[in-house]
């Protein structure tokens, strides 16, 4: 039974990461009805920013500032820079295409994803950059419940992503910006007529979504230690899957989908074989799309003619 719970813990941690990426992806889809293929690459950029922050403050073995402060700087910097990058991408590449046929921004998004991936290759090379998390965060300081061990990084990732999700939920439900976002998502033209600044709302959505992806990138770096330019693509695919399984455009759906995906992946890797994990994820997505295209919690939308 210990193995089961261990896999469950690992799966929930993974799932929290996927959920964070899927949230941003789903938010963008909500307001713009655009599949932002570049979203996974923003996550990759976030992971690199975290790495460079560690290097900046003396490297993993000789951190020159207190570790909690280092973590705060990593997350804040990744959120701000990646959020800004997401906003810039929206301004530069998506806004001119807002009234173009649907296929145009999709292809642009593919182009941006490819461009970001290769720009990272040009700037950082193809070698793996290593966070070396154990050198500055002790893994042994975690919880030990029976034979199940939850290390401190996992606890931090879980707690922080939970806080982010709750914060996002509050933002969407309680604040004026959240109300504007929901209005733009449900009908952009009507929202504009009612005096909502649509451009600002969409830019803010891109900022928030990209910032979440950037912070997820830092968490992934802390958890898996390794960063390279290709991690974005596969993470992007996983986030799609999570968002689609939950119901694309729905924020609780993205969280649920992320968690389910993480747990399922962890169990498949643990009980069957890691060879088939990705194949399973892809098959799961195709199956969900065929059987229930609106996802688990998504509502059926009427198509406007």
């Amino acid at each position, binding site marked *: 039974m210990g193995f089961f719970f261990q896999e469950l813990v690992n799966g929930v941690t993974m799932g929290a990461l996927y959920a964070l990426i899927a949230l941003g992806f789903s938010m963008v889809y909500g307001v713009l009805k655009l599949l932002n293929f570049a979203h996974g690459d923003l996550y990759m950029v976030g992971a690199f920013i975290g790495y460079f922050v560690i290097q900046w403050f003396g490297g993993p073995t000789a951190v020159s500032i207190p570790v909690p402060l280092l973590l705060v700087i990593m997350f804040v910097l990744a959120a701000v820079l990646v959020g800004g990058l997401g906003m810039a991408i929206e301004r530069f590449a998506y806004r001119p295409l807002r009234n173009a046929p649907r296929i145009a921004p*999709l292809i642009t998004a*593919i182009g*941006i994803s490819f461009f970001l991936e290769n720009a990272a290759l040009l700037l950082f090379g193809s070698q793996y950059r290593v966070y070396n998390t154990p050198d500055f965060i002790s893994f042994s300081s975690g919880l030990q419940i029976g034979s199940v061990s939850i290390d401190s990084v996992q606890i931090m990732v879980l707690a922080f992503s939970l806080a982010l999700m709750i914060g996002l939920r509050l933002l969407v439900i309680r604040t004026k910006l959240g109300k504007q976002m929901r209005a733009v998502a449900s009908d952009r033209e009507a929202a504009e007529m009612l005096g909502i600044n649509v451009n600002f709302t969409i830019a803010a959505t891109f900022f928030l979504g990209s910032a979440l992806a950037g912070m997820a990138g830092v968490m992934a770096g802390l958890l898996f230690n390794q960063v390279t330019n290709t991690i974005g693509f596969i993470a992007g695919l996983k986030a799609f899957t999570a968002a689609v399984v939950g119901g694309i455009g729905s924020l609780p759906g993205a969280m649920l989908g992320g968690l389910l995906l993480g747990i399922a992946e962890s169990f498949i890797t643990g009980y069957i074989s890691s060879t088939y994990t990705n194949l399973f994820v892809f098959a799961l*997505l195709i199956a969900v799309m065929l059987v229930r295209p609106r996802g688990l919690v998504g509502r059926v939308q009427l198509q406007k003619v």
Partner: protein
Amino acid sequence: MSLDAQPPATGPQVGADEWVARQALRRESLPSWRGAAQRAAERIGWWPRLAVACLAAVVLPMFGLGGFQLQVGIDSLVIALLAVGLNIVVGWAGLLDLGYVAFFGFGAYGFALLSSGQIGRTGIHLPAVLSLPMVMIGAAVLGLLVGLPSRRLIGDYLAIVTLFFGEAFVEFTNNVAPGTLGGPNGIINIDPIHSFGYQFTSNLSYYYLLVVLLVATMAVLRLLETSRTGRAWQAVREDSLAAASMTIPVNRVKLMAFAFGAMVAALAGTIFAAQQISVFPTDFDTPILILVYAGLILGGAGSIAGAATGALVVMVIYDGLLRSPTDSAYLFYGLILLTLLVKVRPWRRLGLVMAATVAFGLAAHAIAGALSASAIAGGPQSTGWIADVLRDWVIVPANPAIPGNYGFVALVCMLVALVQAKGRWRTVLMVPTLYLASFAWETRLIAQPAITRQLMIGAILIVMMNARPQGLLGARRVESPI
């Protein structure tokens, strides 16, 4: 202006409304030599142009096209065949198929299994007259299966399903049945294409085979384009609801588009496998998909000639020119100059920008040289007159990698700023942008041609979609946003 932009004298034209017609009329009355040249070019029909292009392709190897150039030619023709097939699904039927390369892979793997020692003890060695139709029919069936979701899913949802189908294909060939499919090691020692005692072995024979196949496919598709089915595809693309109310069987028409596209892709796959003598899962991964899309988008989705031309141009640049520093320097500076000539008006402004850029560079070079000798110690990496001209203008430090990286980031930021800027600011910003472009190119991009060409493909997709979504040869269409 293009083959397909030319409105036929009779019959309805899909997707072009009154605005387009008026624009075409305006172009007709263009004064001076440009209008005359355009009218003359438009008077030549589609078929004569295909014949001329075919003749050029046949004659080309006789001018001493060597081993490397011939390989570039073969690769370009394979991608052109793929782009022409993708045009059926994306360009005509308007279905965003992001798993298209899987059919290419299916064709290659299907042919590889049917004509190598992979299955059983001696393997299967079918002649091409049998294996080619088998593989193509198999791909068409697979295309139907993959297209089935298109009955229910539209737009983005279909894109997701097909994207994951493509990824699943790569995972499948990588991991499932390694005894038969070879896993990451792929299948090697594939037979050449052979039938009736004749074998295609030399690269030249494959080149001609591909030319014949591409021209034949384009001819068939041209006939198909104006046929009932072709018109139905385009009607479904414009408005599937309207098409359905005009009694077009929308679902069947979509499935047919998938099947036809898959067949063309599989055909390209068989030739690819036979010519390479080997297939690997990575040959069918996303970069190839993006390459084919770049070709299709550059040429113009919806136009057969556009798809083929765009793919050929992209591949010749990607595979041929961007390998030698000198060739790519010509290409890079030539493209910049061309863009400036076309985009910057009036001439006075263009002259001003050019003069300011030259002065800016000379000053920057002099200042950098005065500050530190090592800042200008490196020279341009290419040879030839461009490098000689640039030597005293562009700063290339002795150790260019790190400054080059900063230059590249600054260049991207400047380009974004340039697009946002208006009026006089745009002219002012152009000067440092041009200089940064040259700096990033000489210090970093030219040293990493493999990455530079990938960046170029991504940039083509972004820029084309924003600046000219109909592509170089496609007809401008007016669509109502949904």
